[in-house]
């Protein structure tokens, strides 16, 4: 048990607390039972008192009732009242009996006896006497108005009662009736007061009870609290002391002191556990500290060693820096050499001479220097660094200059001379010059000199070596540049030639797969422009091919042909296709470039054949149209003749068919003639037999002819003035022109109307207008009106026959006379064809000026 307490802090405290709680519980239960009992007792008493008061009141009421009835009988002689009073006796007796049964005190007993005594007196004496008195008054034997006690006394009943000694009687006072009544009324009232005081007592007792209870409650709480304080304080003080010992110990531990907690460590509770952990921790800390101190010592030793090493390294570094400086110098020298070599190797080295000489001067530690080039004519050109004009002139012109000597000797020449102090340096010094010839590696001729000058010191062996090696490099570089220039020139020439031809060309070099294209290719395929400019034209053949293929309409043909290019099945034929949805027609063929039996490359050529194809198409279309135009009348002639030959026909039908055949034959003839005319005119083979022609009488004659053949039309010729309208024209062709225009005017005004021809002079020409009031021409047809075989396509014009060649012929005739024809028309109102041809005077003058 003792151990159990020690295992955990606060267990003893808990036990005490629980004990108190139990005690308080028991006390509370006891008090509760006691209080309940008291309350019940009080209630019982109260109930008892209440019941007595109630009965007392009832008794009082009964008594009053009896008295009231008895008096009523006496006064009025009412026997019923008397009966009622008698009847009350029993009830009265019952009440008295109850009081007798519940007697508890002496007072109660006396009260009950009083009651019984009074009852007996009243019902035994007063009521029988009263009854008799009332009877006698009713009988009239007594007549007195007020009750006379003597009369009453004289009543036989009263006498009998007195004799029996039942009635207290004194001769002076007679029967004392009022005495018992007053007595009983006092008794009742006294008893009632007693009950009331009894009730008050019960209430007081109750109140006292409550007060005692409250006091007990508060007292118990206070004592409980006091007890708890009394018990807990020492306990807490004990625990706090233990913990504060631990806290003090940890403080001491922090300060590095040795801590002994052995007395607490033996404990079994939490304090014991904490003390043991604390002890362990303190030991670990001490160990660690010891370890750290050792480490620290070790590190200090190491640091010292490091400082020593660092000093050594600094010394080494200094040494290295010195070496580095040297190396950097060498590196700079090498960098210059390297740059020099690179500059020479670069393509644009021709323009980089100043840079070259500058670097050379730097490498060789010279002061000034120059590159002197000899051209084919023997004159010099010079690129110098630091060389002023005087020195340059001396160098080039003086016969004794190192350059001149080197030229003559064709070898390297050195010279040294003392220079006066007015020169760059403030004291007399030597100037060392050297001129090294540069030979053309192909024919050993001198092509240039390297000229360098140093002050104070001569050129060292190494520097001379540098200069000589540079001279060799320069000679090779110059040769390479000359070759490169030649090549560029050749290449430019080839490119210009290839760019100038009309065909587009792609050349694929077999060894490198490089692709070369000429400018017309870009013009032919603008799509390529976008791509190549983006990707710097580094496209492979396949990329070229793919891009071109996207524009080709007959994609498959193109790819199939180009697929064969690099196979043994090399296509020797050409292929045609269109690009960009027929925008251009191309013919493509390929050639192998073979040199010495080895194929070096493949050439693909695109030729623009758009115009040829178009011409071909137009020709084919023309022939197709002509054949169609010829087939229609031929069909009629063929058909009708066959019918006439093979069938039995009635006469009128035969006549009609013959007429038709004739008309169709005529149409065919016209067609063939017109067609031949057009053909001849278009081919430019129409010869015009031109002469001075006054057109007015010609037109008038023709109009007279047409007027005669048409009844529906009125013809009028309007001339602006009386001067002759002279053209330099072929009379037959002019008639053909006018005939076409006039017959059109008649044909296309089927309902008749006026046909007017107007002639007018202009500065250099004569205009002829042919106006009709016919069906007119739809505005959308005006543009195509002069096309061959074009017929206005509507129901009106369909009725009207024609070859569709009349107006094209008119146009050719007018053009043949250097004139113009045009048309204005409003549909359903008429058309006006205007022909403007140079006047005779102007035409002749023009002709003379051209022949001259």
């Amino acid at each position: 048990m003792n151990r159990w307490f020690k295992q955990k802090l606060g267990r003893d405290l808990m036990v005490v607390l629980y004990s108190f709680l139990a005690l308080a519980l028991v006390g509370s239960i006891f008090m509760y039972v006691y209080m309940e009992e008291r309350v019940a007792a009080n209630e019982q008493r109260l109930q008892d008192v209440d019941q007595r008061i109630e009965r007392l009141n009832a008794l009082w009421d009964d008594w009053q009732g009896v008295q009231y009835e008895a008096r009523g009988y006496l006064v009025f002689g009412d026997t019923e009242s008397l009966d009622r009073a008698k009847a009350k006796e029993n009830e009265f007796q019952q009440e008295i009996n109850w009081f007798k049964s519940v007697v508890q005190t002496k007072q109660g007993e006396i009260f009950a006896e009083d009651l019984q005594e009074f009852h007996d007196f009243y019902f035994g004496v007063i009521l029988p006497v009263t009854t008799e008195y009332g009877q006698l008054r009713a009988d009239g034997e007594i007549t007195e108005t007020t009750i006379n006690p003597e009369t009453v006394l004289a009543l036989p009943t009263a006498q009998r009662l007195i004799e029996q000694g039942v009635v207290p009687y004194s001769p002076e006072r007679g029967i004392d009736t009022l005495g018992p009544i007053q007595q009983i009324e006092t008794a009742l009232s006294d008893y009632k007061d007693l009950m009331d005081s009894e009730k008050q007592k019960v209430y007081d007792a109750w109140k006292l009870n409550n007060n005692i209870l409250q006091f007990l409650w508060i007292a118990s709480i206070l004592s409980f609290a006091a007890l708890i304080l009394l018990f807990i304080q020492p306990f807490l003080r004990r625990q706090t002391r233990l913990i504060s010992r631990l806290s003090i110990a940890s403080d001491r531990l922090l300060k590095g002191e040795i801590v002994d907690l052995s007395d607490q460590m033996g404990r079994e509770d939490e304090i014991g556990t904490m003390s043991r952990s604390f002890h362990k921790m303190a030991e670990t800390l001490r160990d660690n500290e010891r370890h750290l101190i050792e480490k620290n010592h070790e590190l200090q030793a190491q640091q010292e060693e490091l400082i020593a090493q660092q000093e050594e390294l600094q010394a080494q570094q200094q040494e290295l820096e010195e070496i580095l400086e040297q190396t950097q110098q060498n590196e700079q020298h090498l960098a210059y050499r390297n740059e020099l070599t690179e500059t020479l190797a670069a393509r644009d080295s021709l323009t980089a001479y100043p840079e070259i000489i500058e670097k050379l001067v730097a490498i060789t530690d010279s002061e000034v220097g120059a590159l002197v080039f000899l051209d084919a004519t023997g004159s010099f050109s010079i690129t110098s660094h630091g060389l002023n004009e005087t020195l340059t002139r001396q160098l080039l012109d003086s016969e004794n200059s190192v350059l001149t000597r080197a030229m003559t000797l064709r070898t390297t020449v050195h010279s040294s001379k003392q220079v006066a102090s007015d020169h760059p340096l403030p004291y007399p010094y030597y100037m060392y010059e050297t001129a090294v010839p540069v030979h053309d590696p192909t024919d050993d001729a001198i092509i240039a000199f390297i000229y360098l000058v140093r002050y104070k010191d001569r050129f060292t062996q190494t520097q001379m070596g540098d200069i000589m090696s540079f001279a060799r490099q320069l000679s090779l570089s110059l040769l390479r540049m000359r070759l490169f220039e030649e090549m560029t020139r050749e290449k430019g020439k080839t490119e210009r030639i290839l760019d100038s031809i009309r065909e587009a060309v792609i050349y694929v070099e077999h060894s490198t797969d490089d692709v070369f294209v000429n400018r017309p290719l870009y013009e032919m395929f603008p799509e390529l422009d976008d791509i190549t400019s983006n990707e710097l034209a580094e496209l492979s053949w396949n990329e070229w091919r793919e891009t071109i293929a996207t524009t080709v309409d007959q994609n498959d043909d193109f790819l199939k042909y180009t697929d064969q290019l690099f196979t043994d099945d090399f296509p020797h034929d050409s292929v045609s296709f269109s690009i960009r949805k027929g925008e251009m027609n191309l013919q493509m063929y390929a050639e192998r470039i073979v040199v010495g039996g080895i194929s070096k490359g493949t050439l693909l050529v695109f030729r623009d054949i758009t115009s040829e194809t178009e011409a071909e198409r137009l020709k084919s279309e023309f022939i197709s149209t002509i054949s169609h135009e010829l087939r229609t009348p031929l069909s009629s002639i063929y058909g009708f003749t066959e019918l006439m030959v093979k069938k039995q026909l009635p006469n009128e039908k035969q006549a009609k068919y013959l007429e038709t055949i004739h008309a169709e034959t005529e149409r065919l003839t016209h067609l063939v003639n017109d067609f031949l005319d057009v053909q001849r005119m278009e081919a430019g083979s129409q010869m015009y037999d031109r002469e001075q022609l006054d057109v007015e009488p010609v037109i008038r004659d023709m109009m007279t002819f047409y007027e005669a053949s048409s009844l529906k039309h009125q013809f009028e010729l309007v001339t602006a003035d009386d001067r002759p309208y002279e053209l330099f024209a072929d009379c037959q062709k002019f008639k053909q022109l006018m005939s076409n225009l006039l017959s059109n005017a008649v044909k296309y005004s089927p309902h008749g109307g006026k046909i007017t021809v107007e002639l007018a002079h202009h500065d250099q020409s004569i205009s002829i207008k042919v106006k009709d009031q016919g069906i007119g021409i739809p505005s959308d047809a005006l543009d195509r009106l002069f096309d061959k075989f074009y017929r206005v396509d509507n129901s009106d014009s369909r009725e009207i026959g024609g070859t569709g060649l009349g107006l094209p012929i008119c146009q050719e005739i007018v053009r043949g006379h250097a004139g113009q024809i045009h048309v204005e028309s409003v549909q359903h109102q008429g058309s006006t064809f205007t022909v403007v041809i140079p006047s005779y005077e102007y035409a002749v003058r023009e002709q003379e000026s051209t022949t001259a």
Partner: protein
Amino acid sequence: MVKILLAEDEEVLRMLVLDTLEDEGYDIDEAPDGLEAYRLIEQNEYDLVIVDHMMPGMTGLEVIEKVRKLPGRQHTKVMMLTAKSQQSDRDCANEIGVDYFISKPFSPLELVKIIGGIVN
């Protein structure tokens, strides 16, 4: 009675074919252009439609192409009279739905024979 539509813009040729076929007892409607031809085919059911190719308004091929899209006119027999007699023209016409192809100039009696073969 066999009903035939003749669409031909050349009046003379129309007369030729009409005369020839009427003698054979066919009932013939005439159309002077493509539009009229289409209208008639739309309204009537013909045993044979003869169309010229080159007609104003709508070419014969255009008429047939439209006719073939009409309900119940997919199988109307169509004969084309044309001055275009190249094989490529014929192929094109066949594709569109021309059943017979007669090139101009033609023999009317031969035509009568062919039509007899078709409609019987």
